[in-house]
């Protein structure tokens, strides 16, 4: 006697939601696609904003950079709420462990001469830079067109305020738990000549209305600032006995690599757009021409000040040889 076991497959009536089937065909969709594609409303906006009657609530016209189909860009990291929160919780745990280690071994107090000056007057004030970057990302989160871009901007905004907080915790540790170093850093952000280029850059971006220009111009500056502060100074720190900064910087350079992933994909989508591609390329070139010289000058000023405090750092030379990877 032999039994043959057979199973019966019941085909589901549909593999995904209709709006995804319309776009991708009847195949199982990922959580990311379900929560992203075609989610933003595109029609039946009854009233125009009273503060901007020329635009709909969600409108292509808020930027010169446009996508014919906003979902031709999808986040390569495929982040939606749950994986975003999980990955950032892990990121913060790792940072907290680093900080606990620094405190336990008093590594921040034992930094070589010059490093404390660099950290307190030049690096710590960058928490205000991050805060400005957060506002600019919020602008994209509200005015971009299409959930895929808006979502990336929203996450970037939270990341930026997170970066500012991480820098603040370093400041508190440098001040032995008191907020004196944070107050000094605020004053340095407002008064230190080497930082005024950065402050001016961010503040000028804050008062112009095009979210796309802000996003691109900010990345042009990030693309120079992050390598200098979190990559080059990291290397210098290792060679000159300031291991504490290297331990801190790794978290920022790691985050920045991830940030660039979606910006690279967005740039590719902007340039490859069948209808808007050429206009986008022209707009990107115009933004680069207008903002990159200012970004270069701002970072050069910062690098020169770093070299003044740490004569062997070679930050200015490093900054001079840098080229931006994204939107260049």
């Amino acid at each position, binding site marked *: 006697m032999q039994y043959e076991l057979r199973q019966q497959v019941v085909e589901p009536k549909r593999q995904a939601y209709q709006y995804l089937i319309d776009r991708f065909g009847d195949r199982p969709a990922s959580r*990311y696609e379900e929560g992203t594609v075609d989610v933003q409303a595109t029609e039946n906006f009854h009233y125009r904003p009273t503060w901007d009657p020329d635009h709909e609530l969600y409108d292509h016209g808020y930027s010169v950079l446009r996508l014919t189909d906003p979902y031709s860009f999808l986040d390569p*990291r495929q982040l939606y709420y749950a994986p975003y929160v999980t990955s950032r919780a892990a990121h913060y745990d790792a940072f907290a462990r680093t900080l606990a280690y620094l405190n336990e071994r008093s590594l921040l107090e034992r930094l070589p001469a010059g490093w404390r000056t660099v950290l307190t007057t030049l690096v710590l004030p960058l928490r205000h830079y991050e805060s400005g970057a957060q506002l600019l990302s919020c602008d994209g989160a509200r005015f971009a067109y299409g959930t895929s871009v808006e979502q990336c901007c929203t996450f970037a905004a939270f990341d930026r305020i997170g970066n500012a907080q991480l820098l603040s915790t370093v400041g508190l540790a440098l001040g032995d738990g008191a907020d004196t170093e944070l107050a000094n850093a605020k004053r340095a952000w407002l008064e230190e000549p080497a930082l005024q280029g950065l402050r001016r850059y961010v503040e000028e971006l804050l008062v112009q209305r095009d979210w796309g220009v802000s996003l691109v111009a900010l990345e042009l500056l990030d693309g120079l600032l992050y390598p200098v502060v979190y990559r080059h100074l990291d290397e210098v720190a290792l060679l000159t006995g300031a291991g504490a900064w290297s331990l801190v910087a790794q978290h920022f350079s790691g985050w920045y690599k991830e940030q660039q992933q979606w910006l690279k994909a967005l740039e590719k989508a902007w340039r490859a757009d069948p209808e808007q591609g050429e206009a986008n390329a022209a707009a990107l070139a115009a933004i680069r021409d207008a903002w990159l010289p200012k970004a270069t000058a701002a970072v050069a000023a910062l690098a020169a000040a770093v070299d003044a405090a740490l004569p062997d750092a070679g930050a200015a030379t490093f900054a001079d040889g840098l080229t931006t990877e994204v939107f260049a």
Partner: protein
Amino acid sequence: MTTAVRLCGVDLQETESTRAIVEAIEADNPEITVRHVPGLVKIQSVNPVVIKRESVEARLGRPWETHEFQMAIVSYAGHIAEWDDDEIVIKWEH
């Protein structure tokens, strides 16, 4: 005289997280047959089955290490001929 064809293959759990792996295998191994049975994806092939880290990562959107493949395997047929950081190869070795 006919030579028996020995199929090698692997059975994976059918979940949200293994879907990217199955898609990567389908893309890298054009001659495989993929059968979906409840809760399970059965992959069979005459040729070696190759699972590449890069292809999985591209679909998953995050770094993926080959040892994570173990979380998806229910069963397999053949030998695991190669299991390094970049790819896994399943085939009959003799």
